[in-house]
């Protein structure tokens, strides 16, 4: 069961997403209307903590549990970062969810979000279909 640890990590992540209320459609509207600091605080402090954690791993030369050297995958720039980013932003504000919170909204009992998830999978599939015709 080498995947059990990822299931448990996901459960912890899901618990935090809900307790932080970042899966709340209301919180997303509040963020984009600049009427609360909550979401900015969550995302900002998450970035700073993650950055410190990665620095510590590098400085100490820690390896992963299976003994591998930890690699940081480079994300090369392409125009999709801009166009895709704008498109995702539009969808984020409609659904009140990025992909992680979609799963958490379903787990929180809003089962109709399964429709949103299927549509998101369809969107990903259509991207794969038309990828070569889009600017990158």
């Amino acid at each position, binding site marked *: 069961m080498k995947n059990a640890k990822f299931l448990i990590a996901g459960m912890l992540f899901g618990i935090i997403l809900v307790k932080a209320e970042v899966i709340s459609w209301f919180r997303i509207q509040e963020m*984009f209307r600049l009427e609360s600091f909550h979401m900015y605080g969550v995302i900002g*402090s998450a*970035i700073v903590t993650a950055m410190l954690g990665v620095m510590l791993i590098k400085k100490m030369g820690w390896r992963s549990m299976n003994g591998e050297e930890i690699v940081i995958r480079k994300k090369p720039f392409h125009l999709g970062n801009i*166009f895709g980013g*704008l498109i995702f932003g539009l*969808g984020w*504000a409609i659904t009140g969810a990025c*992909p992680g919170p979609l799963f958490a*909204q379903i787990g929180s009992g809003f089962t109709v979000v399964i429709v*949103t998830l299927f549509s998101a999978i369809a969107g990903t599939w259509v991207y794969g279909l038309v990828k070569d015709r889009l600017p990158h």
Partner: protein
Amino acid sequence: MNFLKSPWPWYIAGPLIGLSVPLLMLIGNKALGISSSLRHICAACLPGKIPFFQYDWKKESWNLWFVGGITLGALLVLLFLNNGEPVDLNPATIAALRKNGVQEFDELLPGDIFHWGNAFSGTGLLFFVAGGFLVGFGTRYAGGCTSGHSIYGIATLQWPSLVATLCFMTGGFAMSNLILPPLMRWLLL
């Protein structure tokens, strides 16, 4: 127990979310990122003859276990760690949303939008079908979402992730302030 049942403030929840980046590195040499799970589901279920979905998705299946965990974790909160109180929103947000037709503020999501009765209506077409499609298409085109770009990407000092994040925010501001309000008044009022 009282703390566990109340919503967590940003300065507790944010750092805990951030810790998932080094945690995934240490337990499996993995990069935090969730939108890839949607691609793996396509590759597993309906690859067609599309080259983008022709790869060994089983090698990436940790990601599917992770999102399965997210769903279960949320269910655990619903069952055991829930105080049942409404989200403590800025009254200005509540007033603005009320004016646009939202009436139920007692759960994490507005119950008058997010229920099955809306699944096959104009409301569902906007909030579930169109919204979901933009999320799935946009994150894949952008090469990641809030976890992969905004948290993992910026924390590992990758400038394309910063660009993507600024564009996520721009799209969100435009939708919440300009496009969504008239659509909501039309559909919900």
